[in-house]
Each structure stands twice: as structure tokens, then as C-alpha cells.
């Protein structure tokens, strides 16, 4: 489903140039739950952003369903981010001006023109409510994100990521900002989604990820150091 070949990425930090990825190769299969672990600064998040077209590699190729992301036009990349992938971030990244329900159906709104949205808004609201219900937040639909707890916010972020039924779910330290019990609940949601067939790539420090992910890779010094199969 997703292939990365020879990815290089470096950042300039003051005078120095820091290489984050050094010729990394990776393959993600459909229906897989892949966990990427590694020490802080090993390039996990950078890799995830490149896989989700939020960032570009200096060198190397990322292919999604055989299509190179670097050859896509701006419009195609926007459609890719809107329809094909869903992101879950460590710090939730919800829009405070919108209600919980509006945050969830935001990707459906963003992918349509005003008239397109007006014709499908009932469907989108229904789907948003279904997702909130599955995530145990149906009674919080009209609340604002700042009125929710960290775990609730992360569940809203998961709802938003799933709104357009993406083929690939990318999660960047989704439990990194949560307490143990809440983190467990969030991981359980990911596990259930994967069981239902959702492809997931998750970057995490969380050791519990080993019990949930189908495959774990460890990044060190910009390369894959170790591949484990869990489960």
C-alpha cells in the first residue's frame, strides 16, 4: 500500500545541519498496524510526516498505491491528505472555534465546495455523530474542545481522522500526552480499528504499543535498526 525508498531528510539548526533520515526504506501493507519506535530525535515524527505528505524528503521516494507523492500536483496532494490519510497528533490539534461535532466533520467540509457541502451536510453530521458515538462522546458533540479532557480530545481527533474513511491512519505519539489509563483506552480504540481492517502507522514511545501493533520497527540514527513482529 505504502512504500518509502531511500528517504533522506536533514534540518538546519543554526550553523549545523542535522541529518534525521539517512536512506530509510519502509513498506506498509494494507490492514497492517505498524508501530515506529525509537529514541527522541531518531526521526520518527519526520518519517510519519513524510509518509502523510505533510513534509517532503530531501531525497528518496514515497509511493502510495504505486503513485509517487512527489509527482502529485498540489491539488492531488491536498486530495491525498483529505481523502487517503487521517492524522492523529500528540497534541490533538483541534480547532477551538468549532464544536466537537464540527471538528469531526471538518475534513468532509474541507473536501467539498459550499454547494457540495450543503447537499451532503446531513450525511456528514450523521457520520460525525456515529463516530462520536463509537468513541463514547455523543453527549459532548456541542461542546468546545477546551471543555474536554485530554483523552476526550484525542478521541475527537481520532474521529476527525476517520471522518473521510481514509485508507491510512497516521498517529504521532497519540498517547504521549495522556495518563496511563487514558492512554490504554486510546490504544484500545486503535486496536479495534485495526481489527476492523484499518491500516495504521503509529509513532510512539509507549511500551504498551508492542502488545497492540502487528509490527514494530525501531529507528536509530536515521535508519531502521530493528524489525520485530508482535501480536
Amino acid at each position: 500500500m505504502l512504500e518509502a525508498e531511500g528517504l533522506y531528510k536533514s534540518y538546519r539548526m543554526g550553523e549545523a545541519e542535522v541529518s534525521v533520515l539517512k536512506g530509510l526504506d519502509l513498506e506498509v501493507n494494507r490492514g497492517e498496524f505498524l508501530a515506529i519506535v525509537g529514541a527522541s530525535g531518531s526521526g520518527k515524527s519526520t518519517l510519519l510526516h513524510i509518509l502523510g505528505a505533510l513534509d517532503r524528503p530531501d531525497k528518496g521516494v514515497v509511493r502510495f498505491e504505486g503513485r509517487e507523492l512527489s509527482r502529485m500536483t498540489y491539488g492531488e496532494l491536498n486530495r491525498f491528505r483529505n481523502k487517503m490519510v487521517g492524522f492523529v497528533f500528540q497534541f490533538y490539534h483541534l480547532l477551538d472555534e468549532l464544536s466537537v461535532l464540527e471538528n469531526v466533520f471538518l475534513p468532509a467540509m474541507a473536501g467539498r465546495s459550499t454547494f457540495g457541502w450543503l447537499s451532503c451536510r446531513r450525511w456528514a453530521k450523521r457520520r460525525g455523530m456515529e463516530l462520536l458515538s463509537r468513541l463514547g462522546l455523543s453527549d459532548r458533540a456541542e461542546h468546545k474542545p477546551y471543555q474536554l479532557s485530554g483523552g476526550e480530545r484525542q478521541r475527537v481527533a481520532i474521529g476527525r481522522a476517520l471522518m473521510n474513511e481514509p485508507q491510512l491512519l497516521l498517529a504521532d505519539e497519540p498517547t504521549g500526552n495522556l495518563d496511563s489509563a487514558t492512554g490504554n483506552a486510546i490504544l484500545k480504540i486503535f486496536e479495534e480499528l485495526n481489527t476492523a481492517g484499518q491500516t495504521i502507522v503509529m509513532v510512539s514511545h509507549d511500551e504498551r504499543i508492542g502488545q497492540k501493533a502487528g509490527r514494530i520497527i525501531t529507528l536509530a540514527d536515521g535508519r531502521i535498526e530493528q524489525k520485530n513482529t508482535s501480536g
Partner: protein
Amino acid sequence: MYKIILALRYLLRRRITYFAVLAVALCVFIVVVVMTVMTGLVRDFKQKNHQFVGDCVVGTESLVGFAYYEDFMNMLEGADFIEGVSPVIKNYALLNPMGTERTIGVEIMGIDPVRHSRVSGFGSMLHYRKDDVSKAFVPSYDSNLPGCVIGIDLVLSRDSDGRYYYGAAPIEMGVAVSCFPLTAKGSLAKAGAGLVNTKTFYYSDTSHSGLARVDSSLVYLPFEESQVLCGMSGRDKRASWLHIKFKPNVKLEDGCKQVALLWRKFAEERSGERQAELLSTVVVQSWKDYRRAFIAAMEKEQTMMTVMFALVGLTTVFIVFVVFYMIVSHKSKDIGILKSIGVSNRDIIRLFSGFSFLVGVLGSGVGVICGWVFLLRINQIEDWLYEQFKFQLWDRTIYVIGDIPNQVEFSVLAVIVLSAIVACLAGAFVPSWQAARLEPVETLQVSRL
């Protein structure tokens, strides 16, 4: 759709936005008030000049005047686009109120009051003889005496409210008017005692044109007497100007062109006459050109005011730019989020442009409404300020205005509102464009590693 929703929410929920709205409203308020007052003053000034002159004049600045004016008047009166023609003697004179040692330099205009009120607003400028213009030069205290209509500021003074105190009838007062009569060749004609013609006229009425210069230095005299005083009577009578009024459906430019054609034809026909050379100094002018020296100064002030308010507009752009720069800086995370769900750069610009449009519409709406309400009450506010603090925007004892003009012109309002919205869009464009260029990963991560 999310662009409209987010723009509205940013507008309503971000306190900093209120400052942007307030800044726009304040700028619009100031521009609406000052432009309305200034436009009103200029319009009022032009209208008074138009009333004073009529539509068109034919004549000469030369103090000698021009001959054969009666024949040309007949020609004009035969034309179907002319409503009326009034011959005028214009000259300078010395005025000495009898029983005083005071002598002042004035302009005199010799007119036939009935004819002149047909072509200008002369009749409406009178106080005592407004209803019977034919008696403008008949003093109410003695109808056998030769009368004169004196510019109001020469005989009456204004109080702080700008009001003149008229008596029930004009006071009995004679003024000696002395002129230097000129021959047709422009030399001083020997007349009366030495070179000066002097005649006493009696104050029969005042004229209040609303034009400071006119009201403070002009004396109207009967036409024939003025002609004699200025040495323009005799075999080939002369006049200084013919004031003309066109029929209501005649456009000013068209009317003036037709009069100019008629004048050229007339001047050619009279080219062999004895005083034909006087005709070469004659010009045909619209009232606007005739009063250009005065109107241009006022228009220049208006232009300067417009330039100043263009600078106010630039300030608005800068304020909106700063506010939007701050808003966009605070919203960089939102931009990252939106881009991570597939929102394009163009839509980010549209979102913030929509936001700035709303700021412009709301700000200019508030500014226009406040400006309008303020203008409706501007005279009451000025009265109140005067009663409480003795403050007057225009000292009525100096400036010849009554009420402060407050007639709002919708075209001016539309231009101001549009300019404010454009200023907001311009101020928000650069921050929006910069926001759109941000890579999503730049705004979503604290650490890039």
C-alpha cells in the same frame, strides 16, 4: 463552507478582532463626518456662487466695459434657450457713510433689480424687499431718494450664533459713492469735482449672498445711475457684464457654447463699428469659470482633505495589517491543522480574506452608522458644546456659514465603505499569503525531530 464558519467564529470569538473592527469603524467615522461636512461646504459654496452669478456671463474684466450690449441682449433674448439676461455695471468705488469720517473701498454692481433677480438669486438675498424686488432701490423711509442695496456685512454684524439683527425697517442712512469714470479709451474722464463722480444713495436694503467676499464688499446700485457714475453712459452706452440664465432643460456647457457662437457672430457683425475694439476683450464664461478663483481655492482644500484621508486609509491598511499579522501568528496552528486535512493554500488565503472582508464590512458599517447619527446631530452637538464650553467649530462672527452641512451623500458613503473593505483586504493579504505558504509541519510541531 468551513471558510465562512471559521471566518465568522474568528470574528466573534477573537477579542483582538474587535480592535480591528474598532480601528476600521473609527477611520470610517472620521472620513464620513469630515468628507460630508467638507463636501457640503463646497457644494453650498458653489450653489451660492451659482445663485450670485446666474448660469453664464458675457463681458469683460476691463473697467471700461463694452459697447453695443443692448443689441446683443436683444439677440440673446430672441434665442429659445435663454430665460433671461441682465446687464451689469461692475466697478470699484469709495463709500463714505454720511456723517462719518469713514471711507471704505467697495465693489459696486449696477443692476436692474427685476431683470437681475430673473437671472440670479438677487431677490432671495434681500431682506426687506424680498417680496417686491422692483422696490429694492426704493428706501422705505423716503421713496423719492435713490436707494442702494448694501452687502450685509458692511451694515450689520453677526452674533456668535451667526444671526444678524435686522430692524423692522432699514435705518435712514445715506452713503456717498465715489467712482473714477473712464472714457471708452480707458483714460480718466473729467467729471464733477476733479476726476471723481460722487453721488449719494440711501440704504434701502441689505443683500445676503452667503459669500463672505460679496457680503463684505459689494454695494448694488441702480443700473442707470451706476452707468453715469462710471462714465459708461452717453452716445455708445457701455456695460461690464451680461448675466444670463438658461431655460431649465439647457445644459450649462451647451448653453455657454451657444452663447459663445452668438457672441462671435455678433462681434464679427460689429467689427466695423466705432467702439468695436472694446469687443475684443469680451469673454463668454460659465458661472463656474467666472468664479473660478474662489471655487478653485475651495476645491483645492477639498482635494487636500481627500489626500489627507487617503493617508487615513493607509493607516487603516497598516492597522489591519498589524492586527491580521498578530491573528495569523496566533492561528498558525489552525493553518497547519487545516492543511493536514487537505485545505489548499488558496483556500487559506480565502479564509483570511473572508475574515478581513467581514472585519471591513462590520467596521465600515459601524463607522457609517455612527457617522450618520453624529452628522444628524452635529448642529445640536455644536450648540451644546457652545452652551457648555463656549466652543464653536466655526466662529460665526468670522465665517459666513449658518448650520454645519450634514447632508449625507450615498455615493460618498458607498466610496468610503468600499475603500474601507478594500483597505481591510489589502491589509490582510500579506499575512494571509504568508500563512498560506507555511508548510503544515512547520506549524504543527514544536520540535522537528
